[in-house]
């Protein structure tokens, strides 16, 4: 189960929880399985997805907000998908949808603290 692809493919759309006749919060179960698999250092069933999440959180930890450009760049390097969506990215940039300069919040240290506390618990 922890090695399966399924727990990574789940996007948390919560349709399952809404319809379950036994009231089981399946999306939360998926979250728990994912968190457990990471803690136990199980090789993720879909590495590109787990990498994405990790990269996203790295950006948050560094800046307090997600800087999409640098996050996407880091993701593409890590997942070795260097050339996908390049055209789309260019289009988005031209339309002003991609901010080159990251927004850094003043409370960056608080965010770092939040991440640090979780790691040491």
């Amino acid at each position, binding site marked *: 189960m922890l090695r399966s692809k399924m727990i990574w493919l789940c996007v948390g759309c919560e*349709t399952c929880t809404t*319809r*379950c*006749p*036994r*009231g089981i919060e399946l999306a939360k179960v998926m979250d728990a399985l994912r968190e457990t698999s990471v803690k136990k250092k199980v090789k993720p069933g879909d590495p590109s997805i787990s990498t994405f999440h990790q990269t996203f959180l790295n950006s948050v930890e560094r800046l307090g907000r997600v800087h999409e450009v640098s996050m996407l760049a880091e993701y593409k390097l890590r997942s070795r998908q260097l050339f996908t969506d390049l055209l789309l990215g260019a289009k988005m940039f031209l339309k002003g949808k991609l901010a080159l300069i990251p927004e850094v919040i003043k409370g960056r240290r608080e965010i770092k603290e939040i991440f640090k506390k979780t790691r040491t618990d």
Partner: protein
Amino acid sequence: MARVGVFVCWCGSNIAKTVDVEKVAEAVSKMPSVVYATHYKYMCSEPGQNLIKDAIKEHRLDRVVVASCSPRLHEPTFQRCISEAGLNPYMLEMANIREQCSWVHDDKESATKKAIELTAMAVAKARRNEPLFHQEIPITKHALVIGGGVAGIQAALDIADAGYKVTLVERTPSIGGRMAQYDKTFPTLDCAACILTPKMVDCASHPNIRILTYSEVEEVKGFVGNFDVTIRKRARSVDMSKCTGCGVCWEKCPVKLPSEFDEGLGQRRAIYVPFPQAVPNVPVIDRQHCRWFTEGKCKACEKLCPAGAIAYDQEDELVNEKFGAIVVATGFNLWDYSAYGNFGYGKYPDVISSLQFERLINASGPTEGKLVRPSDHKVPKKVVFVSCVGSRDDEHGYPYCSKVCCMYNAKHALLLKEKVPDAEAYVFYMDIRANGKGYEEFVRRAIEKYGATYIRGRVSKIFEVGDKLLVRGADTLLGKPVEIEADMVVLAAAMEPQPDAKDLARKLSISTDEYNWFSEAHPKLRPVEVLTSGIFLAGACQYPKDIPDSVAQASGAASKVIGLFSKDNLISEPTVAEVDEDTCTGCLLCKEVCPFSAIESKTIYDKNGQPIKVVSTVNEGLCHGCGTCVAACRSSSIQLKGFKDNQLLAEVDALAYAE
């Protein structure tokens, strides 16, 4: 001054092997009020009983203690014995020195000591015994059956055949109930109407059965043997004595509205009989929709009726009648599946309930038995049957299983294939519950002979695309999602109690469970009775049930009624509760806690008719002597005859102060 006689039994060696019986008799003879004590080998035998009777006469005993076996075995024996000697049977006490002493201990010395203590306790109680007398409660041998479905019909027929009068009350215009709505019944595939209508006609022609349709029970007072019931006979607006059932009126009535009998798929008129085989075959006018009653126009039926039977000025009639027993057979309702948002909130016309499917395939239904889609009247080629819609669903419906759906899904799949041989039937199921006689074979037949495809999984979403219905579900055996493009979807909606079940329960003073099914007295051992004496249950009103079980339960309820009516009077047990009206404060807590609704309030008046106080009073016919009221009473004003506080405390004292 009490004169107690104690008789200690050897019971052969059953008691004597472990208990020194002679020593017990000797020890007891020294106790206060004991004027005679003896022992004998077999107290229950004829010489033993004669011994007791002679001793009563010789020693002028006024109460007797027998130290022997369990009272459950021989209490009636010894009660009869002492009453033959002229004593009141309740002046007997028994000490169980066999099952509760000699049979469970090994050591003779301590067993004997215990036997002495047990007997001493019995003596202490017996000294405070009082004579008690049975009451005779007359029984009105007329049964009321509420609900004219197959269960009510069966119960009525059985009671009537035993020679007793029955009044069958049904609130719709005809008897027949749910079974009349079905097409064919599993597992025999008998036509439901064909096997039901003979019973309906039997009811109508039975000399002992009076059928009141379009009627409802308004009020119930009284108790077992003596129920005082008011029934409202709603105004049909048709004179039953004149109407011939020719049908001209309902053919010509201009008002059309959705038919309840056809579950909204067909139409009826404002003057109507619910279905062609209605019993009685006399229409009613739905005054809320009739043009004469709402607008003052039309009157076509009156003009056209050849028998002059229309009677617009008819009024509701209240009938008051006494009954000795009531059978509740009010049936079930189908859960409103439009609560399921992922199935379309009831908006898709081709997503229908199982009952609606029955009406569509039935020859007397809205399409005369042609299976067509409600939306465009095309014949469906792919039909999906969904199990457990609202059943086994804690979150959106009921947690229980509705019992019959697995069987009728198989039946529907089979009947679909019979009607439309090139159609495909898909059944989504979680489990297949086919646990009756011939049931498993029936399901197998639907699958193997008729080719129904069974998919194990739930349906996640049903939606319309063009004129098709897409059914998305899971096939858990293959581990794959499934999508079926269907023409029609039939939902096995849960069975639920009638919406006014709780109201009826209140009128009858019977209990309901958390879903409003009527509560039986004991789920295993007393399935047709309720805790209130004289009221019995039959059919699905107690819990989801198929026809064989409903009929069986109805006959069971009928047999209880017949047993009740076979006596002229009810002999009530005298060991019931009794109120000391002097000390009773009228708090009525006892009334609240009584499980048998046997206690009522009573006002005491002085000789000028002015109320002095309110006290509680016990209906001895209903009281079961459970003692709950005694425990609740704050002033010890209510006591159990034969088991009063002072008697029981005397036993405790005897034990506490024994050497």
